[in-house]
């Protein structure tokens, strides 16, 4: 039995808590959050130890801890978790600056714990498929790649309305603007083509936020001839289950798009996945949660992979150095390019 701790019960935290309940021989035994309401939810989901301080979670006999905290708190809690000898799953980014990332990597190394970062887009079925096809050489050498993720960002609405957390409006605390989502696209470029340089970036601001809400970034792989255009934005009203994400690869012998492997009709897809789970449930098998949502299934997959690694004592596939490389590219973008906003009306 793997005992898990969970620090931070926001939307992602609660989702990880629920995901863990569907995993074999895994139990979330301790959680921490400043909100009593959320702790009550955790209690109702069977968590015995609930605390308002994360330090209390680290004192319990958990094997690993999941950290779903505001970006600016990652490094501090992560270091303490490593020093407490707990294996760590942290939501991206590893830390706000590359310097902080390096301190964290050092602490994790010294304490000999396993650690990974939530790069869940790597676990999307469509991403896995295009990577496999590309790696088999079916489209030749990729010269041009386009990656797009245009969403609401922190303003995504939900059926039960709740205020957007304040830290999303504070540049110091979030550490980045819509590059918080661009982070995934940069990681995917590195995942597909290895380390990269920034050739160009445009950071725009349609909304009057203290950071960019859309960006166009051009990357060049250091390992091969691939160049990538990354389009990311937080300006678009997209309501679930819409998912405005795609990667298009143009190679010397053909092209590929993630859209070829994504559900064409979300309603048919939802129905199909629901029926599959219904039959699994009917014959007494464990269901595979969230497959009907397509996107959220990737979060289940990444947590399951981490737990398997903890169980086997092997390094998780997403390393802290992968996270550091991504943060470094974001730093390079911010150091070379400034946000251009629309002033007046």
């Amino acid at each position: 039995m793997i005992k898990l701790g969970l620090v931070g019960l926001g939307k992602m935290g609660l989702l990880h808590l629920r995901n863990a309940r569907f995993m074999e021989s895994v139990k979330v035994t301790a959680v921490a959050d400043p909100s009593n309401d959320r702790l009550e939810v955790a209690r109702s989901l069977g968590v015995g130890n609930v605390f308002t301080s994360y330090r209390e979670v680290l004192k319990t006999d958990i094997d690993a801890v999941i950290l779903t905290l505001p970006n600016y708190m990652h490094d501090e809690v992560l270091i303490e978790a490593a020093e407490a000898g707990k294996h760590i799953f942290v939501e991206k980014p590893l830390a706000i600056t590359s310097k902080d990332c390096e301190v964290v990597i050092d602490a994790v190394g010294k304490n000999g714990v396993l650690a990974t970062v939530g790069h869940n887009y790597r676990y999307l079925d469509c991403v896995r498929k295009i990577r496999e096809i590309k790696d088999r050489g079916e489209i030749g050498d990729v010269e041009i790649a386009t990656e797009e993720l245009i969403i609401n960002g922190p303003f995504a609405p939900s059926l039960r309305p709740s205020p957007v957390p304040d830290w999303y409006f504070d540049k110091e605390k979030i550490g980045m603007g819509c590059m918080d989502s661009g982070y995934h696209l940069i990681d995917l470029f590195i995942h597909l083509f290895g380390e990269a340089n920034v050739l160009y970036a445009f950071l725009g601001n349609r909304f009057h936020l203290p950071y960019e809400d859309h960006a166009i970034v051009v990357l060049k792989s250091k390992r091969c001839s691939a160049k990538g255009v990354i389009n990311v934005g937080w300006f678009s009203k997209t309501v679930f289950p819409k998912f405005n994400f795609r990667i298009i690869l143009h190679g010397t012998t053909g092209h590929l798009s993630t859209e070829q492997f994504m559900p064409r009709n979300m309603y048919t897809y939802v129905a199909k996945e629901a029926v599959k789970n219904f039959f699994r449930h009917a014959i007494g098998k464990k269901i595979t949660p969230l497959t009907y949502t397509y996107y959220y299934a990737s979060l289940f997959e990444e947590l399951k992979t981490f737990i398997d690694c903890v169980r086997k004592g092997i390094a998780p596939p997403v390393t802290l150095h992968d996270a550091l490389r991504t943060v470094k590219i974001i730093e390079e973008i911010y150091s070379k390019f400034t946000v251009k906003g629309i002033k007046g009306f």
Partner: protein
Amino acid sequence: MGFCGKQKAASAQSQVLIIRVKDPSLDGIKTSLSRGFDAMDFHADYSGKRVLIKPNLCYYWDYTTGETTDPRLVSAIIDFLREKCSAEEIAIVESDASAMKASRVFEVLGYTDLAMEKGARLVNLSADETVFKEVEVSGRIYELQVPRILLNPDVKLINVPKLKVGPFSDGNSLHISCALKNIYGCIQWWRKSDYHASLNEYIVAINKLVKSDFVVADGLIALGKHPVRLGAIVTGSNPLAVDSVVSRIMGYNPKRVRHLRLAEKEGLGNVSVVVEKDEIDDLRRFFPRRNRFLFSLTWRFQLLAFKTYVKLVGDIIPPPLEGVIRP
């Protein structure tokens, strides 16, 4: 541009005017608005009065979504009020909502910059002094938390709603969301979703307390099945009269719109506005009407299917759908 008509009650106050805006630039909006107000002979003297402008800033949606009031329209109104109505103290007001904080939404949607540029104040009504009031609607008492400033007779309220179809939540849908619904946004209690079960009644209740002095409904970009550049502004001094005209533009008979019918019953005006049909028909042709019956049926079916699936199989509800099943 043309007068839509007068209410049968035939007071000059009930005039409704549709202003067509061909040029959607700030200058174009200003010119059209000014011409419209002149045609309506709207030249109130607001010297020495505090003028509050209440746009619809329901969430962090850009005005191009058709969900929130276009800041350029508010900018044009401020200019007009200063130039023609001698208004000195102007404030843009909004209160917190279930998913939105007024102070943040001012910032994100550009109202902070606009207020600075125009020398207007920004007021979060939820932070204003509170008055608890009881209002009777259909024989039932509704208690409301109202900002004191809105009950001051020396304060003038310019209601600048958005021309859009109503929200659909908790199985209680509104046909339209315009002038009367925008005043519902003034209620101080932030978790307004608590009131959704009696949304129609609460809309009428708050409108019985808080009177709009003038309505300038933003139909520059309207929202039906999807957003559309309608290029229209609907103005008038009676919110119910404006909503009745807007309802017709959207293809709904105002007599069948529940909160309008209720407002009429409660003495807020008359839905039977005598209209010049051409003007409305012109706009109705462009308006992407949402088939309310089909929309409601599809929505209810999806919810029922989803709830049944989750209850039977025990699958996880993702964050955007949280709240579908009440604990």
